[in-house]
């Protein structure tokens, strides 16, 4: 009540100061008149009565003031006065204000844009129920490869033996063909145990999710739709519930529709590479051993309250160790891990994101230093005004407060404009962001971002305003009020020192950013230069997936793909055509399969060699420019039916056949239910399949009749632009089977570009920030040198008058600027030595401390700052001695 009344009075006083004072005045006067009347009643003459009352009342104005202090005034009113005054100052110095506001807007805008991404990916809760308790369970392979899928048998053991979880569900993403009375379409499906919906705790908007009953043997086949598919294919009609839809040639009944923003896409080991559009029950029935032991399941679980991921991980490793002992032929040396869901989603972007936030923090600091410098320049022209205020009795704290209010105003203006910059940034980020890593769709200027921006702007206002404010308020009254004491006064020197410190810090910060950007750029170039083992020029790729319902026999698959290859080769403009099950650098399932070399002693379980297995035809190698090093390619006969032949790559040949000829040797690759040795007929060049960073894995190539796959990626090398041929290819496929869709039509260059998109994203962003930092420090050093020349006008005039050459003056100024730059670069390099190691992990083929990079960016910065010094230096050179000396 009390606080409310005080606040109400104060606010009233702010809005209607005059009316409040008038009210007090009125009361005082009424008091006075009552006293006068009383005096008259007591027998005084009117004049005497008035005189006596006046005297007894005391100073009317002081009484009003004292009363007003209760009703209004105080900090609040001073603040408003300061804001009014500050606004006037800023409006008066429009040039200064606009430069400062733009500088701050760039700094704050970049900050808010990056923060909005950090907030979305790293801070905001995931859109599931109790997301902090959701974890992913993976196996770790004997070679130490993490996040591996598990088998049905092992999942069952995890489920039965663990005590850490409320619910646990296995799932596997698969591409499915959706057919009906429309164009056949490939959709992404999540085959999942019904418990997955309990783990995630998300309700459908229509119908139901999968239920445990759906997993019973012989229960009806049902499907849950994503909101997107429901809208696209079924017009968003509620009547879809109970309708049949055909997936992979089998009818399933639609039982539910999920909410619009629901998705659960674990990119790691996803067989589809995109969020699911349909959810089907994952059959978990025990069957033959192969079905039980094949590793293809991802596992998600909800921890019991109070159980940590570490505890769950320890338990899972214990269970896995037991499995390794009990079933060594499948589990020898396998381990397991438990990853919190956020770690799973964003673990690989966390470090780069914090680094980017650090980088924009640096940019903002540089902007602050620049604005502080500007404020100091502005202060020079305001010295007299401030001195006058001090002379009239303003305390130092009062002056500092006034100046800080001005900086805060600047900062707030800067952040308002900065939000515009951030908005543009957020719109632009998805255009350059790596598609395969994270989706930036949800990033927006929400309330957290606005709050952050406000906080940052207040902080920056204080950071860049405090030093100048303290400095200026220390001004010596006499010196400032006297005209002419300016040029050589102690303050000017002090201010120059402060300015030099600011500029040196700016340069040092810019060096750190430039060094980091330089390292990333070099990594990026290295990455592009890596010998990836294939030629991506003019190559088009697309995926054809044959549904089991229509192509149940291996022979049908082989025939379809052979026929389509024939048609491709006859298309005009196609130089060569081939196919492979998984393209290089495509992500997805890069799996490692064990093999035995026939005629050599069998290694103990789990310790045999392993390799990457690809299924191809003969055209694949020439189309991607993979060289045949020895032996021969597959023959036509071998591509019509299985002849038990394989090709190996050079890495495998070198590792396992260092001293003998591998041609003619036989390998038994564990891709089949029974041993099926195949003869090596040739050796081809290495291809970096997993990523550009990783060495090429040892690889075995099967001709597709030996290991028929229901899906193949067709690759075509064309004479001209490969995209021009896409429709013709689709027409040919449709001619073979009118119900057959084609998906993922992309050029090999696009595949390449996506493979380096993360690196490109980091590099581009950091280079942008470093560029901004360099620009801002150049502006900073220009400002300081310009000011310095202005201060030294008389001195320089004198030098010129006594015979100094203009060239000497030019060198004098450049030397001064260079000294600042060199000190800044030196300090920056020291900081860079310490800080660039944070980039380890983002770098490729270059050390965190790289002499070439560091030298290059140092020279670049020296060059830029010399350029920035040149204009002031030229001005100094052209000073007219006579004018300068007369100027007092």
């Amino acid at each position, binding site marked *: 009540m009390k606080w409310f*009344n005080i606040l109400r009075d104060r606010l009233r006083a702010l809005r209607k100061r005059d009316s409040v004072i008038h009210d007090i005045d009125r009361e005082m006067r009424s008091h006075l008149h*009552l*006293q006068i009347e009383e005096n008259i009643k007591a027998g005084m003459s009117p004049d005497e009565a008035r005189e006596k009352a006046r005297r*007894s*009342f005391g100073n009317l104005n002081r009484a009003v003031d004292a*009363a007003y202090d209760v009703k209004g005034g105080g900090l609040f009113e001073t603040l408003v006065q300061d804001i009014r005054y500050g606004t006037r100052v800023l409006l008066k110095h429009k040039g200064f204000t606009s430069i400062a506001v733009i500088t701050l807007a760039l700094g704050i805008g970049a900050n808010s844009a990056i923060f909005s991404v950090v907030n979305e990916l790293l801070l905001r809760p995931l859109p599931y129920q109790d997301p902090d308790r959701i974890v992913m369970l993976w196996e770790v392979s004997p070679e130490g490869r993490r996040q591996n899928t598990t088998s049905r048998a092992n999942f069952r053991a995890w489920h039965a033996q663990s005590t850490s979880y409320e619910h646990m569900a296995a799932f596997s993403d698969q591409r499915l063909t959706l057919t009906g009375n429309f164009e056949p379409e490939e959709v992404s499906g999540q085959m999942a145990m019904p418990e997955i919906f309990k783990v995630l705790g998300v309700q459908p908007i229509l119908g139901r999710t999968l239920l445990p009953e759906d997993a019973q043997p012989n229960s009806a086949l049902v499907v849950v739709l994503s909101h997107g598919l429901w809208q696209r294919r079924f017009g968003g009609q509620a009547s879809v519930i109970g309708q049949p839809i055909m997936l992979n040639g089998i009818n399933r009944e639609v039982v539910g529709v999920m909410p619009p923003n629901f998705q659960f896409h674990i990119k790691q080991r996803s067989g589809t590479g995109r969020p699911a559009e349909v959810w089907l029950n994952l059959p978990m029935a025990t069957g033959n051993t192969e079905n039980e032991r094949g590793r293809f399941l991802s596992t998600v679980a909800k921890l019991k309250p109070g159980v940590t991921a570490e505890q769950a991980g320890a338990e899972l490793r214990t269970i896995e160790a037991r499995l390794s002992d009990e079933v060594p032929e499948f589990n020898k040396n396998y381990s397991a891990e438990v990853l919190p869901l956020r770690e799973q989603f964003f673990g690989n972007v966390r470090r780069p994101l914090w680094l980017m936030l650090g980088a924009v923090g640096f940019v903002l600091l540089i902007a602050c230093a620049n604005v502080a410098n500007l404020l100091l320049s502005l202060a020079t022209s305001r010295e007299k005004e401030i001195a006058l205020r001090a002379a009239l009795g303003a305390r130092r704290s009062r002056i500092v407060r006034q100046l800080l209010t001005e900086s805060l105003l600047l900062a707030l203006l800067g952040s308002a404009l900065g939000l515009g910059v951030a908005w543009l940034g957020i719109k632009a980020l998805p255009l350059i962001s790596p598609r395969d890593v994270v989706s930036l769709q949800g990033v927006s200027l929400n309330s957290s971002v606005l709050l952050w921006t406000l906080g940052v702007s207040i902080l920056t206002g204080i950071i860049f305003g405090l030093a100048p404010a303290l400095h200026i308020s220390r001004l010596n009254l006499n010196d400032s009020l006297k005209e002419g004491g300016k040029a050589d006064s102690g303050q000017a020197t002090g201010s120059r020192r402060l300015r030099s410190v600011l500029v040196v810090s700016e340069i040092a910060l810019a060096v750190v950013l430039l060094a980091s950007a330089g390292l990333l750029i070099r990594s990026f170039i290295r990455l592009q230069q890596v010998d990836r083992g294939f030629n991506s020029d003019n190559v088009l790729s697309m995926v054809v997936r044959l549904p089991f319902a229509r192509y149940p026999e291996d022979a049908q698959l082989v025939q379809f793909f052979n026929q389509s290859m024939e048609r491709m080769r006859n298309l005009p403009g196609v130089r060569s055509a081939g196919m492979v099950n998984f393209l290089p650098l495509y992500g997805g399932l890069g799996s490692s399969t064990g093999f035995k070399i026939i005629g050599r002693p069998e290694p103990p379980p789990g310790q045999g060699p392993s390799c990457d297995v690809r299924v191809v035809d003969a055209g694949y190698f020439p189309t991607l420019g993979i060289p045949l090093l020895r032996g021969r390619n597959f023959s036509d006969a071998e591509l019509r039916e299985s002849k038990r032949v394989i090709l190996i790559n050079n890495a495998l040949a070198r590792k396992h056949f260092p001293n003998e000829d591998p041609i003619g040797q036989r390998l038994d690759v564990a891709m089949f239910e029974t041993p099926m040795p195949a003869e090596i007929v040739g050796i081809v060049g290495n291809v970096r399949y997993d990523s550009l960073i990783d060495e090429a894995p040892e690889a075995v190539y099967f001709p597709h009749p030996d290991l028929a796959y229901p899906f193949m990626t067709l690759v075509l090398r064309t004479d001209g632009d490969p995209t021009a041929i896409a429709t013709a290819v689709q027409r040919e496929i449709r001619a073979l089977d009118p119900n057959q869709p084609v998906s993922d039509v992309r050029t090999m260059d696009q595949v390449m570009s996506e493979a380096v998109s993360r690196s490109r994203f980091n590099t581009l962003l950091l280079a942008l920030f470093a560029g901004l930092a360099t620009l801002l420090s150049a502006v900073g050093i220009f400002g300081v040198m310009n000011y310095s020349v202005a201060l030294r006008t008389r001195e320089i005039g004198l030098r010129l008058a006594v015979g100094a050459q203009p060239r000497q003056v030019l060198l004098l100024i450049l030397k001064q600027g260079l000294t600042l730059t060199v000190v800044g670069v030196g300090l920056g390099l020291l900081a860079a030595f310490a800080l660039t190691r944070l980039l380890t992990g983002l770098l490729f083929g270059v050390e965190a401390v790289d002499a070439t990079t560091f030298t290059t960016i140092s020279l670049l910065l020296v060059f830029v700052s010399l350029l920035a010094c040149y204009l002031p230096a030229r001005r100094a050179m052209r000073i007219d001695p006579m004018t300068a000396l007369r100027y007092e």
Partner: protein
Amino acid sequence: MAKAKADLLQGTLDMLILKSLSLGELHGYGIIQRIRQLSDEMLNVEQGSLYPALYRIEQKGWVSARWDVHDTGREAKFYKLTRSGRKQLETQEASWDRLVLAITKVRQATT
């Protein structure tokens, strides 16, 4: 109560103002007169200290104010004790009595 002890002088003035209003609505001039009367002309409150104190009391919600026409035909601002003001007066009087009692005891002991 703690406040009354800590800031005796101002608290005393507050109490006197509240006391003078406990007998009925008054304007500022009237409050001064009433205090003077009740104290047998011994206490003379300055206008300069009356109004800030009065405004503070008003902000605390112990009195309410309104403009009205005085019986002389002149307008004046009248103050009236609120319910919480009356309660406050009781508290302050009680605390004042205790203070006087305590001081008296101390003085008697030393003489």
